[in-house]
């Protein structure tokens, strides 16, 4: 595509071609340039001269520039390169017959431009140094996340003690967009996870005549694991990224600076509301996901021939309120983590237009990793110290 564009440009610019006639005589080279050197014509001429002048071992090089005009720096670059010996193994060309305007333009193109070609190459550190920098960054980031969660945890109780200071309208708006609007997608994913869990386990359990225990499995998994995790991951993807992008945009547009200079703490003014909303809505959303997940599993069990009452009784004999408590505790912790980490990523947004997108991505990745980590930790603690 790019080549096509260049070809079209060449064709369109073909009206003002530049010609280079090269004559060699006993090691002396004479180049006669004719036409206009501009951004479209110089490339071809440059390659032609480079190809010819680097073939032989010449004693002198003379360029007749009396019939050539230059449009600006592009044409001047070729003349300067010839005069500095850049196309002829260091053999400097003598430019003759330069027109006054061409000479003026050539003067604006310094020899420094010829010598310093391109930006300085980026320096790469040694591998151990890179690993060290990466580890330091990781630890520093972890420290920042923990201290930020601590700051938010410290700011939450005063907001509850003095509810008038809390911007409940903002909490309600976030709960609506992050919670109520997420109900369909949470229902769909939870139901499908419930269905798949039962379908995958049905055949192995059939070999042992233990298919009734599918009810135990769907109950345990939906209430203790898949319900909270599905809810949290969807929340991280839908709302965590939105939190990070919102705060990131506010930082880029200096709205956060405006808050700070007004004496308003962005943490109290923006973060606490979002964390509070996430903290309140995640357990509710999780409870909804648990029920839908169990219903999805029950539908499959019903199609395998189990009566609903039997499934219900089996479920109640195994699953109790402790499991629900564990599931909801997990959900609340996940909500807190998502709210805090997403807001932190938003506040950490750097400079430039790509920074907001980068913050949203970092927020989703960090939230999902922390959700899985904390889920493992809670399940392990619950197993060893019920």
């Amino acid at each position: 595509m790019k080549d096509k564009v260049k070809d079209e440009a060449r064709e369109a610019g073909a009206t003002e071609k530049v010609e280079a006639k090269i004559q060699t005589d006993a090691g002396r080279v004479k180049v006669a340039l004719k036409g206009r050197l501009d951004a479209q014509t110089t490339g071809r001429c440059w390659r032609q001269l480079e190809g010819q002048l680097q073939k032989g071992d010449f004693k002198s090089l003379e360029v007749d520039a009396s019939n050539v005009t230059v449009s600006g720096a592009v044409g001047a670059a070729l003349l300067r390169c010839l005069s500095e010996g850049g196309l002829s193994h260091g053999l400097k060309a003598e430019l003759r017959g330069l027109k006054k305007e061409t000479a003026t333009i050539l003067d604006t193109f310094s020899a420094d431009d010829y010598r310093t070609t391109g930006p300085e190459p980026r320096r790469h550190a040694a591998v151990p140094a890179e690993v060290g920098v990466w580890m330091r960054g990781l630890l520093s980031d972890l420290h920042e996340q923990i201290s930020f969660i601590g700051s938010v945890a410290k700011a939450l109780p005063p907001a509850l003690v003095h509810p008038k200071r809390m911007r409940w309208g903002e909490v309600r708006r976030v709960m609506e967009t992050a919670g109520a609007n997420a109900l369909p997608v949470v229902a769909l994913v939870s139901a499908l996870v419930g269905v798949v869990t039962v379908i995958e386990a049905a055949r192995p359990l059939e070999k042992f005549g233990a298919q009734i225990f599918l009810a135990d499995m769907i109950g345990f998994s939906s209430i203790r694991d898949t319900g909270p995790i599905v809810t949290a991951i969807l929340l991280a993807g839908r709302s965590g990224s939105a939190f990070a992008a919102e705060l990131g945009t506010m930082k880029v547009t200096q709205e956060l600076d405006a808050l700070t200079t007004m004496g308003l703490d962005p943490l109290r003014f923006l973060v606490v509301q979002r964390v509070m909303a996430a903290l309140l809505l995640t357990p509710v959303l999780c409870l909804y996901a648990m029920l839908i997940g169990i219903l999805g599993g029950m539908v499959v069990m019903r199609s395998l021939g189990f009566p609903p009452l039997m499934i219900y009784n089996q479920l109640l004999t195994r699953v109790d309120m402790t499991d629900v408590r564990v599931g909801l505790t997990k959900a609340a912790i996940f909500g807190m983590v998502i709210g805090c980490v997403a807001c932190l990523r938003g506040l950490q947004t750097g400079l430039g237009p790509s920074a907001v997108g980068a913050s949203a991505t970092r927020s989703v990745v960090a939230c999902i990793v922390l959700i899985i980590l904390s889920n493992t930790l809670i399940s392990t603690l619950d197993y060893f110290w019920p």
Partner: protein
Amino acid sequence: MNAVIETKDLVAGYGERVVLEKINFHINQGEVVAVVGRSGSGKSTLLKHLIGLNPPLGGEVWIEGKNLAQTIGPERQELLRTFGVLYQSGALFGSMTVFENVRLPLHELTDLPDRAKDMVTNSKLRLVGLSDAANVLPAELSGGMQKRAALARAMALDPRILFLDEPSVGLDPITAAGLDETILQLSCSFGITFVIITHDMESIFTIASRVLMVDEEARTIIAEGKPADLRDHSKDARVRALFHRQARPQKQPRSTENGHQ
């Protein structure tokens, strides 16, 4: 002298909303023309029509002897390459360094060898005084430096015409004066034609050879001439108000209110 830019009964606007009409002017090679007017008078709208971003609602825009709206395909690409544009915000690509930004048009639109592209990029950066900021991302530059980097990018393909949209907005007087010097140098050395949208009177008197003034209510060009002539001899209250920074135009006899100066 041949006109490099010419408008014939141009009607400028958006959709069905007409902002300016009966726009007729021509600009010759090497001229530095400032387009002035109050905020909202349609200066930037006019610029969008001159550079082909918006098609004319009526009339014609001619660049280098070609009707911009009717030039299509490779010929239009070639025509677009004859001019560069400096946007008000700079419009530098945030994910690229200053060097990469300036080199981009050379890389994408020419078949120059890499060495030539680097050399030209270096020369453009030196011309705007940004040789030391080549490896910096635009977000790390000050507003003035961003403007200069954007100017270097607009000049990358050695355009014959440069359109500048409020180049000195947000710049300190010293940086703005430096930008004026660069524009004058480019005009003298390379014979580049400049069309500058600006409110900066100091800059107008320093660099502009001619001024076009557009007016929101008249919806057309109400004055045209040398900056000093318009300031000192214009009988149009609106022109005097702009050049003398008066809050409200002082009333004049009806016969001198309309028409070109």
